[in-house]
């Protein structure tokens, strides 16, 4: 394995391939940077070009792009409070408050550094998982997958903020929005009102953009003034890197979590940033998550780049795409004359290993490139909001329209956006809604399959029971722990 890895490195370092990788990186950063455009758009842009390309060159291009989308998408999340792609929503929670304090560069520095480390860890995870991928993937049967979606949903509770009831309601609303369209098992349409547009359900970019970005646009108009309340920007990139280095353990944890979730097929890697954020919030003592805690940037940013490495495992070895991006990647493979499957471990092993290297190298190059861009781009946070709004509105509408190229996209964007605005006014947490939306179909799918296949027997599966116990601890343990620590504090210990 190690020998072939070194051989693959020499293939990757061939100048022509490096050139294509850099092209990919450039595009990846741009689509990440533009709010609303993400990996899926980047992939569809590149797809026509990979046709008939040498697989090593083509993969350098595609993977180079995928690897850095979540590096570039940090900019709008931190600077404007608008998700750069659907994978960087959690970064907003603390990144945006930091930008308001004028510490955008610091937040960006930490985020980019974590993206880099996270991406490298994701690549390593892909490498380590190669020999044992097959038994690992087949160990997740439908009841276990169902319990994992429940675990994800229970995270919504952690992100609920002060009022658990509002959080739960918001999560339920997300589940309902997620159930629009055709049911997973039976051909049956729900809440479609005979609109063909709704029959496939709403797409994630539309909902994610609307729920987070739309309210920001209105706030920018009403609260005249720039994002940063301070007049000058303090703290530099290096300070952020320093912050990140102080939280080495958090980066590691979040990155491992990220690659694990990416790896589990069918769980919807798009909530990975929220899960890492929630886990961080739960496990770090004395945190001020939500008010501009740098650790609230570090956790999701380490996880979302690491996810890509993990999600390539089921894609390449089983032909099971975990996201829209990897689904297009599968098409790209065919256009280059390859087919995902067990052969990626035997005859095409060197290609698989070259993908690992590309991931690692692209993450490093991408992060360094972005760091040089921080200084000029961070000034965006000094521009008065009302001047930014027209540009952002068009960008966001284009982003939403990219999902299906239908008028419905724009109508859905505005409708969900208004819902998001109402939720901000009423101070309802929005992350649970998004988690509910993403997990709705998976939860329903695996619940249905579990019951159809095993009756109620599956409830006695030991893994199901242990995940169930974990969920209960997560939901109740927090409040118990808080009480204990409050008591201790009161007693002055």
């Amino acid at each position, binding site marked *: 394995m190690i020998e072939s890895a070194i051989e693959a490195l020499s293939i990757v370092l061939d100048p022509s391939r490096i050139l294509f990788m850099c092209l990919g990186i450039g595009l990846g950063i741009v689509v990440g940077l533009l709010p609303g455009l993400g990996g899926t758009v980047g992939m569809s842009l590149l797809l026509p070009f990979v046709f008939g390309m040498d697989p090593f060159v083509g993969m350098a291009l595609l993977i180079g792009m995928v690897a850095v989308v979540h590096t570039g998408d940090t900019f709008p999340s931190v600077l404007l409070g608008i998700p750069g792609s659907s994978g960087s929503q959690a970064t907003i929670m603390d990144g945006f408050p930091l930008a308001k304090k004028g510490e955008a560069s610091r937040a960006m520095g930490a985020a980019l550094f974590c993206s880099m480390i996270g991406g490298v860890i994701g690549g390593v995870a892909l490498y380590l998982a190669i020999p044992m991928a097959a038994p690992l993937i087949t160990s997740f049967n439908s009841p276990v997958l169902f319990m994992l979606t429940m675990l994800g949903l229970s995270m919504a509770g952690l992100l609920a903020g002060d009022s658990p009831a509002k959080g739960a309601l918001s999560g339920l609303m997300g589940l309902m929005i997620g159930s629009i369209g055709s049911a997973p098992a039976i051909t049956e349409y729900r809440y479609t009102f005979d609109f063909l547009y709704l029959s496939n359900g709403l797409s994630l970019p539309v909902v994610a953009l609307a729920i987070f970005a739309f309210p920001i646009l209105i706030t920018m108009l009403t609260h005249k003034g720039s994002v940063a309340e301070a007049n000058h920007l303090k703290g530099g990139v290096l300070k952020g890197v320093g912050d990140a280095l102080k939280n080495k353990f958090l980066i590691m944890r979040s990155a491992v979590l990220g690659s694990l979730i990416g790896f589990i097929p*069918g769980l919807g890697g798009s909530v990975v940033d929220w899960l890492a954020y929630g886990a961080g919030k739960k496990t770090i003592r004395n945190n001020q998550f939500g008010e501009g805690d740098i650790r609230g940037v570090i956790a999701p940013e380490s996880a979302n780049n690491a996810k890509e490495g993990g999600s390539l495992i089921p894609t390449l070895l089983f032909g099971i795409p975990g996201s829209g991006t990897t689904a*297009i990647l599968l098409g790209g493979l065919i256009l280059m*004359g390859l*087919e995902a499957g067990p052969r990626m471990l035997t005859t095409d092993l060197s290609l698989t290993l070259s993908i690992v290297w590309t991931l690692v190298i692209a993450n490093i190059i991408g992060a360094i490139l972005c760091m040089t861009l921080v200084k000029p781009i961070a000034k965006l946070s000094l521009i008065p909001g009302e001047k930014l709004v027209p540009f952002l509105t068009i960008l966001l509408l284009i982003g939403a329209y990219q999902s299906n*190229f239908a008028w419905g996209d724009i109508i859905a964007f505005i409708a969900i956006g208004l819902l998001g605005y109402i939720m901000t006014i009423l101070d309802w947490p929005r992350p649970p809604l998004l988690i509910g939306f993403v997990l709705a179909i998976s939860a329903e799918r695996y619940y249905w399959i579990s019951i159809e296949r095993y009756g109620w027997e599956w409830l006695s599966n030991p893994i199901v029971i242990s995940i169930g116990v974990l969920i209960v601890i997560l939901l109740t343990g927090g409040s118990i722990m808080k009480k204990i620590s409050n008591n201790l504090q009161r007693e002055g210990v």
Partner: protein
Amino acid sequence: MRKMYALTLLLVLNLFLAGCQPLSIVSSIGTSSKEEQGYNEDLLTMVVPYGSGGGTDVFARFMAAPLSNHIKNQPSIQVENVPGGGSITGTNEYVNSYDKDGTNLVTTSASTHIPYLLNQSSVQYSFDELTPLVGAPTGGVVYGSTDLNIQDGFDLGQVKEKLYYAGMSPTGLDLTTLLSFEVLEIDAKAVLGYEGRGPARVAFEQGESNIDFQTTTSYKQNIEPKVENGKAVPLYSLGQIDENGAVVRDPQFPDLPTVKEIYKELHGSEPKGQAWETYKHFLNATYTLQKVIWVHKDAPESAKEELKKAANQLMKDEQFQQKSSIILEDYEIYSQAELEKRIENLEKNMNQETINWIYDFLLREHGVDVRKL
């Protein structure tokens, strides 16, 4: 002010990226007076009613260049993805709002054909309004777990264990396999709702299902190694429909018996009845005619002639045959005349009796009321 420039630049860049997308809303640049000039285009549009990167999109993109090589003027063929509604949206849009001047083509697939055959209310297209140009088949193999303790498909009558089948949806590609179970009276519990054929295959590996099917390439790539290791047993192939409408062995799996042969072995007679007729009908539309490239039937004759000629030349193009083996899974495309005949036969076989039977079957076995879709 400099910041504003930067923003404008971003905006322009974004518009540019959006414009670059192959699915941009560029309508055909055809002119009205081409009838007299003959067919002399330099840009054709190929509508793909699926998102980028899927099987049909890859097929369309692959076919674009070789097809164009045989058309006069060698026009570039621009792929335009119109996803949504399980391919109904894009196909509806093609027949309703694209110019019928011979510059717009559309690529459809089994999941476009099934809602049409089922007469779903959202379908506004009809094979009557379209002229087929290029068509390609795929195949399917049903295989079982070695735990069933059978050697081949002929032993299916002796299976003692409960059979579980993992699939996606009763009105998708699974339908043909489910119909084959109905014909053979295999009592398999269909657990539907999986995300795709890949996850269904993983379910088979986990033991969540013990009878499954895969299409040609996926079977060769993923299941044949398992057969060699003694972890799976091939049972039967779904077969192909020949020019006369009979079920024949799949050219890619000449050693595997078809549903028809298994039935004969199990029941001692040729299969007949409405279930068998319906099976053949859907086998034809979903496998034998899996991917079809069409042009509006109302397009000018000169355009249709030119396109038909190109499609026929494509079949003889040796370079194309070499390059296309992966995309076409080693099957051969049909000649245009043959394809047209096959589509005509398909239309002829569609009758109210078959539709009623399939409605009843879907409602009874899978709780789907097609009338309400």
